[in-house]
C-alpha cells in the first residue's frame, strides 16, 4: 500500500481546504446572482474542481520548491486558470470580452490568498520544511 509523505498530504489538504472554504461563494451566492442577472448562468466554469487544483498545486509547490514566493506561485496558477477558463468559454461559445481580464484578475486574487492564507498555513504546519520565507 502506498504511503504518501506527511508533508505531501498536508500540502494537498491545505490547498484543498482553503479552496473548498472559498467555494462558499459559488455555492452560497451563485443562485442569488443568477436571479439578479439571468445572463450570468450562461458561463459555468468548473469551480467545483478548485479544491483538487489548489491541493495539487500546493503539493507541487512542496515537491518542486520553486525559486519564487508562494504568492507568486499562486499567481501563476491564477494566470493558468484564467487562460484555461477563457479557452473553455470559447469552446462552449460563451466567451465575452471582459473574460480577457480573467488571467490578470485571478492572478492578483490568487496572489493575495496564497500569500496571506496558504503561505502561513504551510509554514505553520511544516509543509514548507526548512524554507521560511513566504
Amino acid at each position, binding site marked *: 500500500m502506498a504511503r504518501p509523505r506527511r508533508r505531501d498530504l498536508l500540502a494537498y489538504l491545505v490547498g484543498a481546504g482553503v479552496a473548498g472554504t472559498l467555494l462558499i*461563494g459559488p455555492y452560497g*451566492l451563485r443562485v442569488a446572482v443568477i436571479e439578479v442577472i439571468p445572463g450570468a448562468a450562461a*458561463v459555468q466554469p468548473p469551480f467545483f474542481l478548485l479544491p483538487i487544483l489548489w491541493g495539487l498545486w500546493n503539493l507541487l509547490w512542496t515537491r518542486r520548491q520553486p525559486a519564487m514566493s508562494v504568492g507568486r506561485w499562486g499567481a501563476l496558477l491564477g494566470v493558468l486558470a484564467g487562460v484555461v477558463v477563457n479557452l473553455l*468559454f470559447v469552446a462552449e461559445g460563451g466567451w465575452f470580452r*471582459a473574460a480577457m481580464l*480573467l488571467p490578470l*484578475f*485571478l492572478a*492578483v486574487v490568487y496572489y493575495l490568498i496564497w500569500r*496571506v492564507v496558504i503561505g502561513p498555513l504551510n509554514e505553520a504546519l511544516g509543509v514548507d520544511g526548512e524554507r521560511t520565507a513566504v
Partner: protein
Amino acid sequence: MRTLGLIRAATPPPVRDLWPRLRARLGDDERVHLRLPAFGWREASAIAVALGTLAVVPDPLRFLVACGLL
C-alpha cells in the same frame, strides 16, 4: 468492611476531570503559530488591481461568476 476500607484507602480515586490531563498532553508544541505576512505595497497593489478590474468590467457580477468566485 475493614478490608474493603483498606483497599479503598490504598488506591487513589480516578481522575474525573480529564481537561488538565489533556492540556498536559498537548503542551505548547501542539499549538500552531501562524505568522501572517506584513501588509506592504505588493498587497496594496494587488488589491488595487483587483478592485480596479471589477470597476472596469461592464458587468462585475457576471465577471465574478466567470471567475468561479461567485
